[in-house]
């Protein structure tokens, strides 16, 4: 909302290692300096309520307090936030998770590769796409 808001990526991730790896992947494309890290679902929702809409949200599913799917549901049912692109970034390859996420309006679903190189490529490509290539609505 505010032009002053420097944050372009909201990363919701409870694992510090995965957070560190994600930040490293994003830094490959120089996207890491405008990332805000929320450590659980409640924190993410609070941030969105207080600080407004970033350009993209990278959302883990298995989170303390409020799960990723619940965060997704609230975002997509909030008229103000509905247009926020949500990229699910998770270890779960389970079909029910994938189906539910898309039902709730997820914009993308990425299974975190175990292999570091693949992981870095997947995350940095996603960041690049949603920040630089994707055209969000203007308002």
């Amino acid at each position, binding site marked *: 909302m505010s032009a002053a808001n420097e944050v372009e990526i909201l990363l919701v991730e409870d694992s510090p290692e995965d957070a560190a790896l994600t930040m*490293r992947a994003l830094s490959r494309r120089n996207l890491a300096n405008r990332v805000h890290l929320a450590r659980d679902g409640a924190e993410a929702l609070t941030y969105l309520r207080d600080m407004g809409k970033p350009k993209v949200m990278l959302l883990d599913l298995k989170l303390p307090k409020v799960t990723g799917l619940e965060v997704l549901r609230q975002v997509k049912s909030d008229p103000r936030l509905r247009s926020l692109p949500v990229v699910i970034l998770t270890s779960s390859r389970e079909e029910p998770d994938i189906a539910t996420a898309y039902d709730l309006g997820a914009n993308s679903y990425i299974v975190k590769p175990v292999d570091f190189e693949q992981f870095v490529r997947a995350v940095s490509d996603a960041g690049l796409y949603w920040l630089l290539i994707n055209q969000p609505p203007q308002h």
Partner: protein
Amino acid sequence: MSRIARYRARLPVPAIHPLCRRNWSEMHRWNRLSLAAKLPLTIGILLLLACGTMTAVTYRYVRTSATDLAVDRLELAATRVSELITQSARTRLAQLQLAAGRASAAEYLRRPSEGQRAVLTSVLAEYVGKSQTPVAVELWDAEYRTVAQAGVAFETVPPGTRRAWLAPDANPRGTIVPFRRSGERLVYAVIVPVYEDEYVVGHLVERRVVAQSGQAAAMLTGLIGEEAVLLLGNARDEIWTDTTRIVSLPDAARSSGAARYRRADGAEALVHTVAVADTPWMVAAEFPVAIVMRPATRFLRTALGALVLLSAGGAFVGWVVCQRMTTPLRQLTAAAEAIAASGTAPPIATSRVDEVGRLARSFNTMADEVTQGRQRLEGVVAELDRRVRERTTALEQANGELEAFSYSVSHDLRAPLRAIDGFGRILVEDHAAELSAEARKCLDVINHRTKHMGQLIDDLLTFSRLGRHPLTRGPVDMTAIARSSMDEAARSNAHRLISTVVHPLPSADGERSLVGQVFENLVQNAFKFTRTRATAVVEIGHEVRDGLVLYYVRDNGVGFDMQYADKLFGVFQRLHRAEDFEGTGVGLAIVDRIIRRHGGRVWADATVDGGATFYFTLPEESSRR
């Protein structure tokens, strides 16, 4: 109730004995009648038969007896009357002889004088005067001419005929002449000879109209009743009379003894005829058969009435008895139906000690058994239901736990792996200068093994998911998915020289994605184990063995020793060293599980270094409705 119905449906149908079947159509109508109708009918018919037979026999006996009795009486009557007539005839002869003597008939005939004639006339007039019936007395001379006469004037009989009346062998004491017709009456004659020194000089003749003597009539009535008729006539011809008029009696009735004949008026009559001694006459006593038979007819009418009453009464008693007998049977039937419908029935109250009572008590015992059995059965069923519910709950719980476990594995097991791999890389990237060659080699191993573990986790998840999700079956175009798997594998091995063949395959029934997974795993295996071959050959086709379609994936790879074939499809079971051929040992376990879940079978045929062929079967497409 439906459970009971199902149990009942399983009971064997009783076989019908051929004999019973043959008679069935004949007995059908009878069998359809209820006992309450059959017993009275049977009793009624039996009574009717028995009493009917008895009545018939008795009737015959009564008829015969009546006839015999009537004949006896008729004989008695006829005999008595004939005796009476004989006696009367003798009396006449005696009186006539007496009169002849008193009148000095012989003297008058020898010497007819006025004086003699006056004596003769007075004696004859006196004789005639004593008679109550019309009578004439004549004196004939030797030439059979009338010389004197008294009484009524009957028609004159010529002397020739008069001579004929007296047969040569005639009784010298007197003759009784057969009846003659005189107008509408019968007339008879009694003739006594008049002797003069042993010579017959003339005859004294009495002619008289036949009339019923009061004595005879009274005797007859007393003997056999008013309906009896007495007939009198000549033995030699048909000139007979019932004493009031002339009747004709047929030959049949004229022979001596009992007979039965049809009278001129059409009625049948019993007759007994007796010759009258000392005369040419006969006496017949007759009786109309209808009257003889009257007691028999009366008996028959009474007996038939009694018969009908008795049969109806018997049938009614039968009906009452049957009601008494079938009431408990009906209660039994109702109770049996109640048991069949609901499994219980109130006990049948009976104080009877006969067979029906015993049946009712047996039935009560059986009903108790059935009720108890049913309760036991329901207990067992309830227990089974409870156990099934428990097991289902336990299974659902286990499944849920497995789901959660898989989810955790999927998520939590990969995260640390990713961290290990990631931070190893970061170590290399950020601190390459500080790491020795040996340290970098160690980090390579870590990297390699982490990847392997990631693959292992993925395969395991796939494997466990296969056991949990229901199949979505449908027709599967086997040729298309075999070709697709082959093409996919060929693309990832584009650098190798591989000859692939996919023969057309018959369709199968199954879940398309899972069957695809089977081909994928088998084809990938084939590609993997032909890696050492200069020219790899992978072929997909099918055979029909014993009517069963066998799909196969064949390669010319390294094969394996068949003695380990049983380990081939186990999880984590590998027949090759990891250095030679990478793999998690889950691929064939997945294939096995998919085929089993479809109801098929998978097996392999191989020789060391001689290639391997994997066969599997699936349900045919037409097997599903």
